[in-house]
C-alpha cells in the first residue's frame, strides 16, 4: 500500500507547488510586470512538465542544474550584451513606463488661487481651516474649468490632525457648514508645526489638491502634463507638447529640449562606436587594454616561473626539509586573497606602511607606491606573484611526479647537470599539460578585478581624461568604475566593454578546449 500513499502524497505536493507558483505569478502580473510574469509562467510550466511527464524522466536530473546555469550564468551574460546596446545610465535610468509615470507626476502651482489658512485647536490635535478669498475666484474658475472656485467664498475644514510628524499625508476637507471650529490659533503655533503642516496635502471634494505655500496660505496644484491618446503629453501650463523620442530616450519639446528623467532605449552600436572612435573613450580604453595584457602576461610569467623553479628545487633529493619548505611556501595560497591583498595595501602605504619604514631605515627611501604609475604597477605584480606562485608550485610538482625516474637516472649516468635535466627532460614533458593551465591563468588574470580594486582601485588616475580610469586599471576594473563609481553611471557603455571582454575570454576558452582535447587524445 505504501506506493499508493506515496503517489497520492506526491500528487498533493505537485498540486501545492503549482498553487504556490500560480499565486506568485499572479502577484507579478498584478505588479504590472507582464514580461517577468510570462517568463516565470514559462519556467514553472516547463518545470512541471519535466517533473510530471513520464517521457522526460532523464531531464528531471538535468533540469535543476541546467535551469540554474541558464538563470544564473547565461541570463546575466546575455543581459550584459543587451545592456551594451542600450543607453542605460544615470540619465536614462528608468524604463519608459516608469519615466512616463514620473513625468506625469509633476505638478504645478496654480498661483492665481490662494486659500487663507488658520489652525484651530481640536479635542485631539488640530484642524486646518481653509478659506477662499472672494477676489480672484472668477479668474481661477476660468483657468481650471472645474468650477469649484466659482462658488461664493467658502470655508473648508479638516478632521482633527495630530501634526506631530513630517511624514506626507493626504487629508480630505469638508465644507465648514455649521461646524464651529473655535478661535484661530496665533501664528507662533503655526510656526511651531510648520514642517508637519507642510507634509499635509488637502483634498477638496471635487478632487483638487492643495499644499501649504506660506505661513498663511495653501495653494492648489495640478498635474503639469496631460496624456494624449497618441502617447504625447500636453503641458497644461504652456500648452506645449512633449513627444517621447525613442532614439535619444527622452521626452522632448517641439524645439528638441529634453525633459528629465530619460528612459532606456535601444541605441544600436552607439556604445561601441564611442569606445573606438570617440577620443574621450578611445585613449583610456587603449591604454587600459595594453596594461591589461601586460599585467596578465607578466603575472603568468612570474607566477609560473617562480612556481616551476620551486617545484624543481624541492624535487631535489639532496635537499633536506623540502616538506617544511613546501608547506611554508604554500601558505599564501591558503590565506583568503581579500585579506592578503588588504594586508599588502597596508604594508605598502606610503606614510604608515611597514615596507616604507624598512626601506627608510635601510636606504632612506620612501617610495610613493600608490602615486607613481610605475611603482604602483610594480607593487601589483609583486603582490600578484606572491598570491599566485603556490598554485604553479603545486601543479608543477604534480606534473613532475608523473615523469619516469628512469629518465633522470639515465641523464645522471650521462653526467647531466640540473639545467640540462630541466631543459632536456622536464620542460619538454610538462610543457603540453601545462599550456592549458597557463592559458587559464592568463584568462583569470585578464579579469583579476579583486587585486586591482582592493590594492589600488586603478589609481593613480589618468590626468588627461575625464572618464574614471587610471594607470593600473585593467578592463574589468575600468568597466566597474564606469558603471558604479562615475557619476554618469554609464551602464550601457560598461556593458559594451564587458561584451568586448567576453570575446577575449571566449577566444581563450576555445583555445584552451582545443589544447586540452589534443592532450587527452595524445594520451590515448
Amino acid at each position, binding site marked *: 500500500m505504501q506506493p499508493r500513499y506515496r503517489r497520492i502524497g506526491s500528487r498533493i505536493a505537485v498540486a501545492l507547488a503549482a498553487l504556490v507558483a500560480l499565486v506568485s505569478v499572479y502577484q507579478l502580473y498584478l505588479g504590472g510586470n507582464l514580461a*517577468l510574469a510570462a517568463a516565470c509562467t514559462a519556467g514553472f510550466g516547463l518545470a512541471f512538465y519535466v517533473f510530471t511527464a513520464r517521457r522526460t524522466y*532523464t531531464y528531471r536530473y*538535468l533540469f535543476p*542544474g541546467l535551469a540554474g*546555469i541558464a538563470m544564473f*550564468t547565461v541570463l546575466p551574460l546575455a*543581459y550584459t550584451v543587451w545592456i551594451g546596446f542600450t543607453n542605460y545610465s544615470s540619465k536614462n535610468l528608468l524604463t519608459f513606463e516608469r519615466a512616463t509615470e514620473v513625468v506625469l507626476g509633476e505638478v504645478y502651482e496654480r498661483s492665481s488661487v490662494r486659500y487663507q489658512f488658520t489652525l484651530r485647536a481640536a479635542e485631539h490635535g488640530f484642524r486646518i481651516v481653509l478659506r477662499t478669498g472672494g477676489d480672484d475666484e472668477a479668474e481661477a474658475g476660468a483657468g481650471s474649468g472645474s468650477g469649484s472656485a466659482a462658488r461664493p467664498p467658502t470655508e473648508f475644514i479638516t478632521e482633527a490632525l495630530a501634526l506631530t510628524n513630517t511624514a506626507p499625508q493626504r487629508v480630505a476637507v469638508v465644507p465648514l457648514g455649521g461646524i464651529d471650529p473655535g478661535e484661530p490659533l496665533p501664528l507662533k503655533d503655526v510656526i511651531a508645526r510648520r514642517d508637519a503642516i507642510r507634509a499635509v496635502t488637502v483634498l477638496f471634494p471635487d478632487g483638487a489638491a492643495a499644499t501649504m505655500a506660506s505661513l498663511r496660505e495653501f495653494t492648489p496644484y495640478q498635474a503639469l502634463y496631460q496624456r494624449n491618446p497618441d502617447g504625447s503629453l500636453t503641458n497644461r501650463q504652456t500648452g506645449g507638447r512633449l513627444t517621447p523620442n525613442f532614439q535619444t530616450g527622452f521626452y522632448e519639446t517641439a524645439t528638441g529640449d529634453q525633459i528629465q528623467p530619460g528612459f532606456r532605449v535601444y541605441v544600436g552600436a552607439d556604445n561601441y562606436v564611442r569606445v573606438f572612435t570617440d577620443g574621450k573613450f578611445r585613449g583610456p580604453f587603449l591604454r587600459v587594454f595594453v596594461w591589461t595584457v601586460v599585467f596578465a602576461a607578466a603575472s603568468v610569467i612570474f607566477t609560473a616561473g617562480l612556481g616551476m623553479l620551486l617545484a624543481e628545487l624541492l624535487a631535489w633529493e639532496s635537499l633536506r626539509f623540502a616538506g617544511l619548505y613546501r608547506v611554508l611556501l604554500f601558505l599564501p595560497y591558503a590565506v583568503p586573497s581579500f585579506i592578503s591583498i588588504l594586508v599588502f*595595501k*597596508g604594508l605598502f602605504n606610503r606614510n604608515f606602511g611597514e615596507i616604507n619604514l624598512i626601506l627608510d631605515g635601510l636606504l632612506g627611501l620612501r617610495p610613493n607606491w600608490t602615486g607613481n604609475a610605475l611603482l604602483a604597477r610594480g607593487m601589483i605584480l609583486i603582490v600578484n606573484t606572491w598570491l599566485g606562485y603556490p598554485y604553479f608550485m603545486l601543479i608543477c610538482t604534480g606534473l613532475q611526479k608523473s615523469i619516469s625516474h628512469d629518465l633522470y637516472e639515465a641523464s645522471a649516468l650521462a653526467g647531466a647537470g640540473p639545467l640540462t635535466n630541466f631543459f632536456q627532460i622536464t620542460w619538454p614533458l610538462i610543457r603540453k599539460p601545462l599550456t592549458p593551465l597557463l592559458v587559464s591563468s592568463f584568462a583569470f588574470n585578464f579579469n583579476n578585478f579583486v587585486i586591482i580594486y582592493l590594492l589600488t582601485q586603478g589609481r593613480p588616475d589618468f590626468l588627461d581624461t575625464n572618464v574614471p580610469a587610471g594607470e593600473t586599471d585593467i578592463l574589468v576594473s575600468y568597466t566597474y568604475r564606469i558603471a558604479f563609481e562615475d557619476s554618469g553611471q554609464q551602464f550601457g557603455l560598461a556593458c559594451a566593454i*564587458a561584451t568586448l571582454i567576453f570575446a577575449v575570454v571566449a577566444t581563450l576558452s576555445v583555445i584552451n578546449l582545443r589544447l586540452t582535447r589534443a592532450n587527452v587524445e595524445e594520451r590515448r
Partner: protein
Amino acid sequence: MPIVAGKSHRWRLIGAHGFLIALVLATSFPLAMVLSISLRPGNFASGSLIPDQISFEHWRLAFGISYVDVDGRVVLPPFPVMRWLWNSVKVAGVAASLIVALSTTAAYAFSRLKFRARTATLNTIVLLQMFPPVLALVAIYAIFEVIGAHVSWLGVDSLPSVVIAYLGQVALYVWTIKGYFDTIPAEIEEAAMVDGATPFQAFRRVLLPMAVPILAVVFILSFIWCIIEYPVASVLLQSEDRLTLAVGSRLYLYEQRYLWGDFAAAAVLSGLPITAVFLLAQRWMVSGLTSGGLKG
C-alpha cells in the same frame, strides 16, 4: 631527482637553502607582520616585528567588545566584524549546499543517462564556466533591481540576492562531479537496478554514498569561493549590517580613517579559520580527486 654530485654540490645546496629561506621569509613577512600589528597598541604605532608592548585592544574590538583607552575614553568597535563573518558563513553555507545539490543531479545525468545533445551541452557548460561573474556585474545589479521591485527580500542589498547570484558557479562544478562519477563503474548501479531498484534509488542509495568525497570537496571549494568572493557582493550589498566579510574588510583602510591595527586583528581572526579549512581540505581534495569508487 638523481643528479650527479659534482664538486660544486655542497655550494649548490647551501645556495638552494639560502634562496628558499629568503623566499620563506619574504613570503611569511606580511603574515607575521599582520599578526604583530594586531597585538600592538594604537592604529599608527610603528615598531619592530616583535611588539615591545602587547595590547589586546584590537582583538577586543574585533570581537565586538568596547574598551577604555588610557585617556579614559570608551572606544567602540568600529565595525561589526562578527556580524560580517556570520553573514559570510550564512551566504556561503546556503549557496554551497544549493550548488552541490544542483550540480550533483546534473552531473549524474551527464555521466549516466543518454539524451540528445549531451556532448554539445557539456561543451557549452565548459565554455560558460570560463566567464567569471565579475563580467556581468551590471546585469546582475540590474536584474536584482527588477526582482527587488516585486520581492523586496530578494532585491539589491539583501543576503538572499547574493546567494542566488552565487549559484552561477554550478557550471564549474557539474564538470568536476561528472569526472568523478565517470570513475565509478556503472556496473554497480546496474546490479542494483537488476535487483529492482529504480534509477532514482540507484542514484540515491548506490552512487551518492560512493561520491561523498567529491561532494565534500565541491562543498568546501564552493564554500571558500563564496567566502572570498568580492565583486558581486560589493555591488549587491550596501548597508553596513548586511556586508559580508570580504566587502566589509575594505572599510578599515581608508586614507582618512586608517584603522590598521583594528584591521589586522579582524583579518587574523577571520582569516585563520578559512586558512585552516583550506589547508585541511587541500589534503582531502587531493585524495578525493584521485581515489575512485573502486579501492584496492
